[in-house]
């Protein structure tokens, strides 16, 4: 991991004259404040800060110098269970995108498709949202603009029927990304639809798409999605605003899954693989 970029942010640690108990307590208070402002789940902030304090005061640095040791503790605890990303094998893959209304699923479906197309993979998207007005048109326009394969049925209201047909029609593509309707945990019928779709289509990856500005609701929603269909990774969107993505991070930590991608703009190329050190820097900055 790039400890150097974390050092830029955790200046206080590297400039501290001594890593004593008073310093650790002040540092933990600063971290708590930063994490809360970044929308990390308030209970997780308590856990993270308690653990950082305990480890900083009780663990001996061994090979690292005391400052680097503290930075590593902070980094590890914030990203606990999240890991450093996900490698999607470039072979026959079905990816299903789910998430709350307006989080960025449709846009992200095409971004991911283009990302892999640029790396030599034959990609296509399926308009699996049969609910939102003109969702079919939105996805079709984007797919056509960037030469991405597309399947959808403008007037079909059974989303599972569309996706099943789409998977058949697009069988010559290496990677198929399925867009679905926005939904939240309390919309029983939509949750049922999502369960049925995952059961029948059996995607290789189910990603939960979360807005980087989402607040305290994130972890609870993520748990509901995970109980319903099992989530393999988180995609964070709209990182080009001022939001720090703490809610989305909390969701990943809650379930113990990686953050796969970060969307940072409205253009098709505005997507990157998750950069853990950069993300933690911004969280604490």
């Amino acid at each position, binding site marked *: 991991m790039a400890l150097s970029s974390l050092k830029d942010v955790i200046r206080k640690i590297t400039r501290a004259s001594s890593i004593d108990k008073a310093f650790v307590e002040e540092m933990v208070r600063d971290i708590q*404040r930063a994490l*809360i*402002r*970044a*929308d990390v789940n*308030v*209970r997780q902030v308590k856990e993270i800060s308690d653990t950082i304090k305990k480890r900083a005061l009780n663990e001996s640095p061994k090979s690292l110098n005391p400052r680097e040791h503290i930075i590593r503790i902070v980094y590890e605890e914030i990203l606990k269970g999240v890991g450093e990303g996900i490698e999607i094998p470039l072979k026959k893959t079905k990816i299903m995108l789910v998430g*709350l*209304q*307006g*989080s*960025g699923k449709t846009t992200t479906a095409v971004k991911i498709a283009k990302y892999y197309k640029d790396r030599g993979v034959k990609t296509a998207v399926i308009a699996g949202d049969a609910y*939102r*007005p*003109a*969702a079919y*048109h*939105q*996805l079709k*326009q*984007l797919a056509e*603009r960037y030469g991405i394969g597309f399947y959808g049925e403008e007037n079909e209201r059974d989303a599972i029927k569309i996706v099943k047909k789409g998977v058949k029609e697009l069988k010559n593509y290496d990677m198929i990304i399925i867009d679905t309707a926005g939904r*939240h*945990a*309390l*919309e029983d019928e939509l949750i049922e639809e999502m369960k049925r779709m995952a059961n029948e289509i059996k995607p290789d990856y189910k990603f939960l798409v979360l*807005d*980087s*500005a*989402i*607040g*305290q*609701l994130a972890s609870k*929603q993520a748990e509901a999605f995970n109980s319903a269909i099992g989530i393999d990774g988180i995609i964070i969107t*709209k990182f*080009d*605003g*001022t*939001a*720090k993505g*703490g*809610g989305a991070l909390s969701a990943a930590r809650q379930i113990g899954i990686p953050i796969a991608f970060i969307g940072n703009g*409205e253009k098709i190329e505005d997507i990157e693989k998750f950069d853990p050190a950069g993300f933690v820097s911004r969280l604490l900055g």
Partner: protein
Amino acid sequence: IIIDKKKLDGILSELEMILLESDVAFEVVEEILEKLRERLNGKRKKIGEKLSSLVIGELKTILLEILGREFFDFDEFIAEKIKEKKPVHILFVGVNGTGKTTTIAKVAKRLLANNYSVVISAGDTFRAGAIEQLEVHARNLGVRLIKHKLGADPTAVIYDALKHAKSRGIDVVLSDTAGRMHTKKNLIDQLEKIKRVTSPDLTIFVDESIAGNDAIERARMFNEAIKIDGTILTKMDADPKGGTAISITYVTGKPIIFIGNGQGYDDLVKFDAKWLVERLLD
């Protein structure tokens, strides 16, 4: 009885947790707690009164003051404004995906139910499927949609809609705009131009109740750039605690006009500050 400082600190830190967990932004929580301490300073507790009830009562008063700073009734506003000019022009703005387009459809339905004629302008000339999305809503509601091609100048579309409405004696024009990040100067400038040229009677900021601390950043920036008149807070049916309402009202000084609580045309209710405060603190 004099208030026990140690006990008070315990209660305040519990309330701090509750407010933060309810999506009230961190800096707003800090200012609220400071105000709360000031008001409790020197206050005496009645015999038999629980300290927590005294503190919570005082907190509720502060929250209601923040939320009730400016009273605004949408139906009354329209009724009054229409006497002095037609069409009444309402502009909807906000960051990406918050529910602007869907909210316009809901507001249109409400106006139609109150016997006003409505025209919608497809001011989002940027996003894929944006115009088609409004076409579906306009068709469902039986209202006219004024649109140009994708890539057209939004100011021109809105201007066109206002001209059309004026010539037909239409009561209200609802203008949609593309979602945009408050960090994109050129897009915020574009919005300033739209507002300057089309002079809306009401500029409504649409944001989502599921947003956390960032709600204050965007509300503040949009308000500084184009001066909003009020906010519609959407997605309350996802069941967030609703503290975002406090954050946004606190930094803009403008009222929450409606709450969006679903994806259907009827899922728009007048904002009730008491209801929100009870929900936050129950």
